[in-house]
């Protein structure tokens, strides 16, 4: 499911929340009527047009005056142009704005590098009091949005192109990594769309007799440090995978933990310090940058041989 479709399906959750809680409002930027919400709550859907700073400032003001605002805005623009508003107006001023952000990672594909959000985790990780959720499949996206409503403070829900993970319906506990597959040879630490990638890599590795643990980091901040440390102690080999720069995002965060722990070796799969300016559809762009099952498999095998 595309991030946009995922966001719209998430809006069903926001509608349910709005029906139960009069404080819930939806603030969007040039999205037009939102199916399932706008016709039910026409006065509670506010579209501010193409203006990220206003989008976030307005949402912060709504929260300040007692509303529970959900912001629907595209990940690259909301996080980069609106960064200071997220930092100052939402986090510093303690206004509990909930961001639903489709088009994270490389999902925008051939629309080009302006539309990729591959630094949003790095940016937002520096903001005190902000929670970053990154669900792995459409069902978990809905659960994450429901959780966002109850989490204290501002929350960013990072949505990418999410495929349904069969049989996965784990209840959503913010801040707790979910172990999707067991294994003590290595651990693949994934988030969002790359959890499915990690599961595919797990199967390929199993056929070579390598038991790779798969961890779903659905909460990037606060990060479940204990689960990362346990994986480092149990396996000694960690591979992070994300639709994001390897610096500053999940890979960077895990590297910080391992450096302080003094245990475990690490390989990071993701975008390496360059713009993804190749003209290619999304799946091809992921392949070019090695963010796919063979790429993860290769990183694990390299660690096994190192």
């Amino acid at each position: 499911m595309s991030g946009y479709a995922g966001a719209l399906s998430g809006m069903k959750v926001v509608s349910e929340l709005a029906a139960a809680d009069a404080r819930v409002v939806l603030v969007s930027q040039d999205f037009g009527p939102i199916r399932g919400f706008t016709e039910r709550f026409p006065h509670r859907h506010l579209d501010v047009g193409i203006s990220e700073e206003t989008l976030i400032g307005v949402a912060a003001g709504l929260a300040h005056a007692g509303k529970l605002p959900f912001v629907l805005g595209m990940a690259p623009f909301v996080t980069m142009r609106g960064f200071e508003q997220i930092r100052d107006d939402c986090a510093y001023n303690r206004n509990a704005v909930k961001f639903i952000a489709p088009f994270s990672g490389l999902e925008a594909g051939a629309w080009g590098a302006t539309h990729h959000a591959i630094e949003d985790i790095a940016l937002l990780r520096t903001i005190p009091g902000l929670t970053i959720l990154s669900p792995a499949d459409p069902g978990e996206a809905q659960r994450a949005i429901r959780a966002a409503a109850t989490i204290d403070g501002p929350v960013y829900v990072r949505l990418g192109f999410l495929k349904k993970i069969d049989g996965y319906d784990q209840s959503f506990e913010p801040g707790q990594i979910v172990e999707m597959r067991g294994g003590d040879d290595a651990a693949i630490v994934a988030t969002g769309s790359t959890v499915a990638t990690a599961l595919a890599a797990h199967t390929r590795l199993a056929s070579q007799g390598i038991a790779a643990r798969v961890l779903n980091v659905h909460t990037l901040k606060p990060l479940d440090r204990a689960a990362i440390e346990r994986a480092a102690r149990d396996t000694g080999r960690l591979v992070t995978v994300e639709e994001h720069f390897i610096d500053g995002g999940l890979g960077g965060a895990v590297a910080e933990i391992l450096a302080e722990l003094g245990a475990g070796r690490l390989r990071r799969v993701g975008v390496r310090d360059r713009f993804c300016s190749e003209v290619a559809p999304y799946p091809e762009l992921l392949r070019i940058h090695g963010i796919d099952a063979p790429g993860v498999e290769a990183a694990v095998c390299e660690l096994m041989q190192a």
Partner: protein
Amino acid sequence: MSDPANIAALKARAATLRRHILAPASTYFAHLGGAMSCADIMAALHFHFLRFGGADHRPDHFLMSKGHAVTALHACLVELGHVDAAELPLSGQSGSRLAGHPTKRAPLVEFATGSLGHALAVGVGIALAEQLDASPSRTVVLLGDGELQEGTIWEAALAAPRFGLPNLLAIVDYNRFQSAGAVDDVVPLEPLADKWRAFRWRVREVDGHDLPAILDALHAAAQADAPTALIAHTVKGKGVPGVEGTARAHYTQLSAEEAARARAALEATP
């Protein structure tokens, strides 16, 4: 509304605010000029116009978007009884709750500011929430003139009338100076009233040191059918001899002698 006793009381209050603003000015390198320029407006807002709550409705909102004028806000907090005057000279010192910009460590500060260009959009959101709830609460955002060079101000100004928001008032403290010098030399704002009108705001211009005119404009804004921009023509550093109306007024520390002279001048203010 503009009865002579009320005006006299507000003038006295504005003079008191200026004395409070001077308190940290000789111990602390502060944004003196922009605090002095808005002192009359702050007196009119905090001791006449803004309703801080009662049983019947929610309190009004005040956002100091030009956060560097914080000493004018702290002066109001003293006069409202939330801060002790003895705290003012310790502003910015270790352990003080009074910082160089509005923060939530200080009592009654609704919104922490400092980075310019933030609070108009936030004010739009607050006014929207009050409008959704059919609350009579008003939202006032105090803007600097240099601050209007921030694009975010015009983004929020463009959006506000689309939502109605007659409960929103933006006041521009047009003191003509910014950090680097005269606003007209850096990036001019004129024709400023026309700009707000073109953005579909109701616009009023006043002498920002003429209290009867300020009160009339505030009451007109409260009756408006759209958001109002009140352009207050002011003098940077108003009330501080030698500093008033100069580029130095923006960001300065007074010598003990200058502070004493300013205090004497304020004492002489009728």
